[in-house]
């Protein structure tokens, strides 16, 4: 063994014992030289005595690090497909197969108000609720008559600065018309902006039809032009020669 190593690394035979000792490997004969020349050789995991059941006695005295007992294998490793392991294929197809819409209002369409804007703007963030929970009593008690006197309001509409609080964003596409109409919505069902939007939609719907009609007319004209008197339809290229 030492001869092989020395031949590999080009060391002279006189330095044979020093070669494997310097490399830190070899047979049992060189073990004494190792201890004499380099001091006690300690492998990293030899310093930690993990106990009998894990390591075989035959492996413990081996000089090779590789001959030590391997760590316990785990069934679940990083290379196993965790999605199939935890039966999340349906969830993966649902969320990653289809396009998920960006806005919060697409997730909660029935929720009133402007929910797509960042909550920091109106100081209604959930983060602030977690970081600074409001100080309140543990129980909820109904309001008594005396407490309700504080909720006597002035008649009339709200001031303008507070009117925009409950306006809902316009929904672009309403394929399915909702049969359930909410009573007494603050906004009229057809605002001027909505009617303009509908008129624009109608115009847009008309425009492609008009364009198609124009195209058809042009085609008809093009077909008629070679069919002038004195010209036959079977000679379309004769016009270009002229």
């Amino acid at each position, binding site marked *: 063994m030492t001869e092989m190593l020395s031949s590999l690394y080009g060391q002279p035979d006189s330095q044979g014992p020093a070669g494997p000792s310097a490399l830190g490997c070899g047979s049992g004969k060189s073990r004494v030289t190792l201890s004499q020349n380099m001091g006690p050789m300690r492998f990293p995991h030899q310093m930690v005595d993990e106990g009998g059941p894990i390591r075989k006695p035959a492996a413990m005295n081996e000089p090779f690090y590789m001959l030590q*007992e391997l760590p316990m294998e785990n069934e679940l490793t990083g290379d*196993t497909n965790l*999605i199939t392991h935890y039966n999340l294929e349906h969830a993966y197809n649902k969320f990653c197969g289809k396009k*998920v819409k*960006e806005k919060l209002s697409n997730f909660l369409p029935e929720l009133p108000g402007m929910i797509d804007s960042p909550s920091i703007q109106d100081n209604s963030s959930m*983060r602030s609720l977690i970081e600074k929970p409001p100080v309140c009593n543990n129980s909820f008690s109904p309001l008594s008559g005396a407490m309700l006197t504080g909720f006597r309001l002035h008649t009339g509409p709200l001031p303008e600065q507070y009117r925009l609080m409950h306006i809902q964003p316009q929904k672009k596409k309403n394929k399915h018309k909702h049969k359930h109409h909410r009573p007494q919505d603050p906004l009229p069902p057809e605002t001027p902006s909505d009617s303009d939007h509908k008129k624009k939609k109608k115009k847009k719907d008309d425009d492609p039809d008009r364009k198609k009609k124009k195209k058809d007319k042009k085609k008809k004209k093009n077909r008629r032009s070679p069919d002038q008197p004195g010209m036959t339809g079977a000679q379309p290229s004769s016009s270009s020669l002229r």
Partner: protein
Amino acid sequence: MAEKFDNLEEHLEKFVENIRQLGIIVSDFQPSSQTGLNQKLNYMISGLQDIEKCRQQLHDINVPLEVFEYIDQGRNPQLYTKECLERALAKNEQVKGKNDTLTKFKSLLISELGKVFPEEMAKYKAIHGDDPPS
């Protein structure tokens, strides 16, 4: 499990609807609306009581804080789930690639070491068993 969420969802929907109607009353208040307003205020408190009762059934449900960041930004929280799944899959692929490369390296190393150190590798194979061919 789904029943607990359905129950909470129902209470939340009623609560939100009550608040919405409260807003309608307040937007153009009339003296005759005072009793209705008082009623709605008490419904709001009873709604909060019902929601608090639901809390006991859901004490073991954990919600990651990152979802709240999505909600605060006005984004769909399902995007968080989607990104988690995509990240998990990407990491799986990355680690699998590393593992496959290391397995190939191990088999190559064992074969080469077997040529250079046949006795030591025989001891290794005796202790650890023969490795399957790569």
